[in-house]
């Protein structure tokens, strides 16, 4: 009777898992991953500065008018305009706009994004945008403007962002 009782109580015990090999594997993996871990995820924005060169006279086939949008970051706001060899001055005039700074003296980048989206919708072939900041504009503002210029609310807007100083 006693023997039978003992046998039954032994079968209830949970079998112990041998965790030592797993621990060993972890001890090898963790130092390796610690070495190859990156805690700052650095990303890049492609840009360029204007250079002197021969004008490319080739026109894209079909009815694809390309506009180059100019974004001037001024001290009191953002001035937008467009230029193109393929469009009339009257059409280009439609894209002249000025967005003054808001109450918190922040640039109205959301409004600019909507305006840029409008240009992209009308002229989907347009892919170049020139940012002309004033001397006092800080680098962070330029980067945020670049973000707005590249990625619109729905689609990619202007992937080619050129940064330029004011001429004159």
């Amino acid at each position, binding site marked *: 009777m006693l023997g039978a009782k003992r046998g039954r109580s032994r079968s209830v015990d949970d079998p*112990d898992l041998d*965790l*030592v090999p*797993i*621990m060993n594997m*972890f001890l090898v*993996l*963790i130092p390796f*991953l*610690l*070495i*190859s*871990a*990156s*805690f*700052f*995820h*650095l*990303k*890049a*924005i*492609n*840009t*360029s*500065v*204007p*250079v002197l060169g021969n004008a490319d006279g080739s026109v894209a086939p079909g009815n694809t008018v390309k506009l180059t949008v100019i974004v001037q*970051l001024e001290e009191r706001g953002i001035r937008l305009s467009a230029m193109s060899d393929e469009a009339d001055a009257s059409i280009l005039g439609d894209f002249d706009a000025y967005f003054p700074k808001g109450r918190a003296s922040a640039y109205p980048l959301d409004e600019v994004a909507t305006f840029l989206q409008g240009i992209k919708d009308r002229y989907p072939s347009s892919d170049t945008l020139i940012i002309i*900041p*004033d*001397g*006092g*504009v*800080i*680098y*962070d503002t*330029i*980067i*945020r403007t*670049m*973000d707005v210029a*590249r*990625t619109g609310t729905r689609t990619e807007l202007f992937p080619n962002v050129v*940064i330029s*100083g004011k001429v004159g």
Partner: protein
Amino acid sequence: MALGRSRRRTQKFVPPKLQLTSMMDMFTILLIFLLISFSSEVVRMKIDGNIQLPKSTAKQDYRNNIRLVVAQDSLWLGDEAVAKIKDGAVVGLDPANLQRSVLYRKLSACRQKAGKAVENGTAEDNVILFICDKRLSFKTINSIIKTAGMAGFPNFQFGVLEQ
């Protein structure tokens, strides 16, 4: 009574077991965290601790090219300090005559080396990885960018932190 005593005597010494379960939990969490932040291409950069990078929605990876680092008070080309920055202006960089600056000379030398590397097929193209403090004004940055453009580096990758 007699039976109890004999049972106690026959019990073998069982060595105490280590409780590894909680340690395993900790290691598992650590492992998952490290797996997320794992990067197959670790590039070590010597960047001034005072530098604050801007955050961006950019998703593109940078290329490990010639590095131009602009901190609040110094300008670095790779790991070498090229100039000091005082009151928002690069010392020794005259906006009217950029070609006389140390930065221009150093960048021109880099351009020649990089040009050969591109010709040999050991490098892709001449793009500068531009890492700059977010608090600096465009007035400071413009002269540096212009100098790089004149030295033959019109294309840049602006280094930003992932948002």
